């Protein structure tokens, strides 16, 4: 989604009303309970929250020019990788084997076998249509943010085709957009 993404793709940028700001905070807190104690640091109440609307119904939540979360239409908010790197435990994690790394980093969706092979790992609790952190065999930090197409259980039993959509990955357009300026 962010394979080619730059400032030109941002069509509108709005400071949101206090009520909307509260709503966004709340849905982020609901989605990532581990983030709750940090919300005041990450989304300070006094700093205006900017929501930028981009193509394909994509929204970015921006604070102090730094993109922190994104979502599609009214879908769940997902952290940017730079934010996730700081707070890796806020998301449930899947792990791809080493062989899958270069495909994920070229923007490919995540295939089931890359998660079920000996180098992969699944958090069994994860259901379909859930944001997950994509980790990699032998690496400490996440390389992508995914949105599951199948539950962890189905990924295991079906074990072919796409298991997780690749939403955002290292070195894609959003990664490179460290700040909006």
């Amino acid at each position, binding site marked *: 989604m962010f394979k080619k993404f*730059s400032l030109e793709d941002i069509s509108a940028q709005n400071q949101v009303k206090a009520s909307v700001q509260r709503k966004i905070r709340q849905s982020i807190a609901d989605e990532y309970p581990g983030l709750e*104690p940090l919300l005041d640091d990450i989304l300070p109440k006094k700093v205006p929250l900017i929501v930028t609307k981009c193509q394909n119904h994509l929204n970015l939540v921006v604070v102090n020019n730094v993109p922190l979360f994104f979502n599609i239409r009214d879908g769940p908010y997902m952290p940017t990788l730079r934010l996730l790197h700081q707070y890796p435990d806020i998301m449930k994690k899947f792990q791809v084997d080493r062989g899958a790394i270069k495909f994920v*980093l070229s923007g490919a969706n995540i295939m089931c076998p890359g998660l079920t092979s000996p180098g992969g790992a699944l958090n069994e609790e994860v259901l379909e249509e859930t944001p997950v952190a994509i980790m990699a065999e032998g*690496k400490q930090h996440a390389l992508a943010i995914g949105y599951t197409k199948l539950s962890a259980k189905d990924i295991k039993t079906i074990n072919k085709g796409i298991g997780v959509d690749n939403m955002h990955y*290292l070195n894609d357009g959003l990664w490179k957009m460290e700040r909006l300026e």
Partner: protein
Amino acid sequence: MAEKPQAVRVLYCGICGLPAEYCEFGPDFEKCKPWLRRHAPDLYPDLLLKEENETDADKAARQLQSVAISGSGDGDSSSAPSGSASASKQDEVKRLPGGKIKKKEKQEVVIEKIVRNKRKCVTVVKGLELFGIKLSDASKKLGKKFATGASVVKGPTEKEQIDVQGDIAYDIVEFITETWPAVPETAIFFIEDGRKVAAA
């Protein structure tokens, strides 16, 4: 309420910007290596070890070459490494002012444009100090000439370099040769697409 987790500090590569552990999958691992050797040697022990051996071999080769030059009574020219590349290497060795051969650093200025965030870029100038130019002075002059920010910073290796904001790569050669006549145009190089190109 749960305890506040501490933010993890991730080591991002100073060259490609990825977490250092992903440089091997990044756009140009070769370029990252000098930085990694200095800042994250534990992440790539094998590669870095191999690299060191290579440079040792390089050094050995160079020593052999300089021996060949100093004892240059011909006859054994057939044993010289082949090709024009080696010839130009010898040239460079010879050109160095006396006694500096053992200092393996070549006396040249290298200019590289680095694009940050698509629209912003920085022109990096390396090697002016090899011509006896004070970098802080040079940085001031460059900033003034191009009406932009210029600063002396520590580069990816321990060496200092000058970072000039903006793309000034193509005006800079003239400025350097005019301001510091000690720097011949033939000693100025650009890095373009990872390759070194002579400015002259």
